[in-house]
């Protein structure tokens, strides 16, 4: 017969739903509808102890409005703050966009598995991003650049609808100037301007043009589902195996704890077991992604 579980009797256990308070230190406007928020925890202890992996996410809480999950766009190698890039879409994101520097928000996390950074060591890394999908990649890219010696060649293919829709414009330049990093930018046809020096065309097409080699490489891709779909086709053509392709999945992740029951794909909970999966894992899923 089973005994009833006993929680710690004197102190109530940690409240997993209670967010940590964080102040907005800086807001950068990336595009018309994307802003990057730099957040610093109110609690000094936490500021030091908060660690995370690229690819993990947090639950961002606007008190009285709601809570939404966002991937961490900053690199754990840069300590003392975290960053999220947020696109204005619905109720919560709209409220986030209305925030000002100095405002206090709630943060729960980090949640999810994150990218397998250790496994990436000693490998060529190919980043393929579209639109706001660059945010989780950015976390990893800085991580890689900050520990440049641990990794081999880095290729980044990033595209958006138009020049105005490219995020992290200043950082793109920095990456470009980093040795061993090859950055290719592209915009959809019609999204260019006269002085545009990058490519024109959809990301999968440009990826094919860049033509990275599959040998000792990993591809990390993130972007709109339609882009991912065609990127996979292209990679397949270039003989990348599905184990070599890593992506992040999007689901409605309300609790982030694997409890609320909605982000599962089969028996896998995207918030807990993901959001990072290799394409080989995804192929095993029965539900369509």
């Amino acid at each position, binding site marked *: 017969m089973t005994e009833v579980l006993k929680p710690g009797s004197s102190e109530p256990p940690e*409240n997993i739903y209670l967010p940590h308070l964080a102040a907005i230190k800086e807001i950068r406007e990336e595009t018309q509808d994307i802003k990057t928020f730099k957040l610093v925890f*109110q609690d000094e202890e936490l500021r030091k102890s908060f660690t995370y992996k690229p690819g993990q996410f947090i639950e961002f809480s*606007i008190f*009285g409005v709601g809570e939404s999950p966002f991937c961490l766009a900053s690199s754990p190698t840069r300590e003392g703050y975290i960053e999220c890039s947020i696109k204005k879409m619905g109720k919560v994101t709209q409220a986030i966009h209305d925030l000002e520097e100095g405002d*206090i928000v709630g943060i729960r996390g980090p949640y999810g598995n994150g990218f397998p950074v250790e496994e990436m060591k000693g490998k060529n890394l190919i980043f393929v991003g579209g639109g706001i999908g660059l945010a989780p990649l950015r976390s990893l890219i800085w991580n890689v650049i900050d520990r440049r010696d641990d990794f081999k060649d880095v290729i980044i293919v990033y595209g958006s609808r138009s020049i105005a829709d490219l995020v992290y414009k200043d950082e793109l330049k920095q990456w470009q100037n980093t040795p061993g990093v090859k950055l290719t930018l592209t915009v959809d046809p019609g999204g260019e301007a006269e002085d545009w020096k990058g490519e024109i065309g959809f990301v999968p097409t440009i990826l094919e043009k860049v033509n990275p080699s599959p040998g000792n490489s990993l591809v990390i891709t993130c972007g709109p589902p339609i882009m991912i779909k065609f990127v996979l086709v292209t990679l397949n053509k270039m003989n990348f195996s599905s184990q070599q392709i890593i992506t992040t999945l999007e689901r409605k992740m309300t609790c982030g704890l694997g409890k609320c029951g909605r982000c599962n794909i089969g028996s896998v909970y995207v918030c807990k077991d993901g959001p990072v999966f290799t394409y080989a894992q995804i192929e095993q899923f029965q539900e369509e992604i």
Partner: protein
Amino acid sequence: MTESREPNTEQQEEWQPKIIGFLCKWCSYAGADLAGGSRIPYPANIRIIRVPCSGRVNPLFVLKCLENGADGVLVSGCHPGDCHYSEGNYYARRKFAVFKKLLEYLGVDPRRFQVSWVSAAEGEKWAEIVKTVVEEVRAAGPNKQLSAPVDKCSGAPVKRKHLKND
């Protein structure tokens, strides 16, 4: 973000009915302006929300007011035939006729939801209506019906513990 109320020093004061008015901008709002321009005093319990037409007022607005704790709601528009949009108030009249019957049937005090026609020339009438509505809502007392606090699952007493505070 939900801002907390100002320190509740007023709590000791006598309860004052809180009334929200939805006024069409062509007739009733202008009527209220006229009352102002004519310096006709009326009780300060009403807060006016300006809408294009009484036909704009979704009955759910009324419900939201009452749910949020307003003690009374007044919707006011142009007299029949005077609507700036020619028909808006007729639709409003039907909606509110039904909605009022519904609230009454559910046992909501009918004094809490009132409708009036006030033209741009009826400053006096506006002031009179506010007076009457305020008095009626005062008589009805604080709205404890639709705004009743949520019920707890079990009646166990609670103690509050502050966890985080800056």
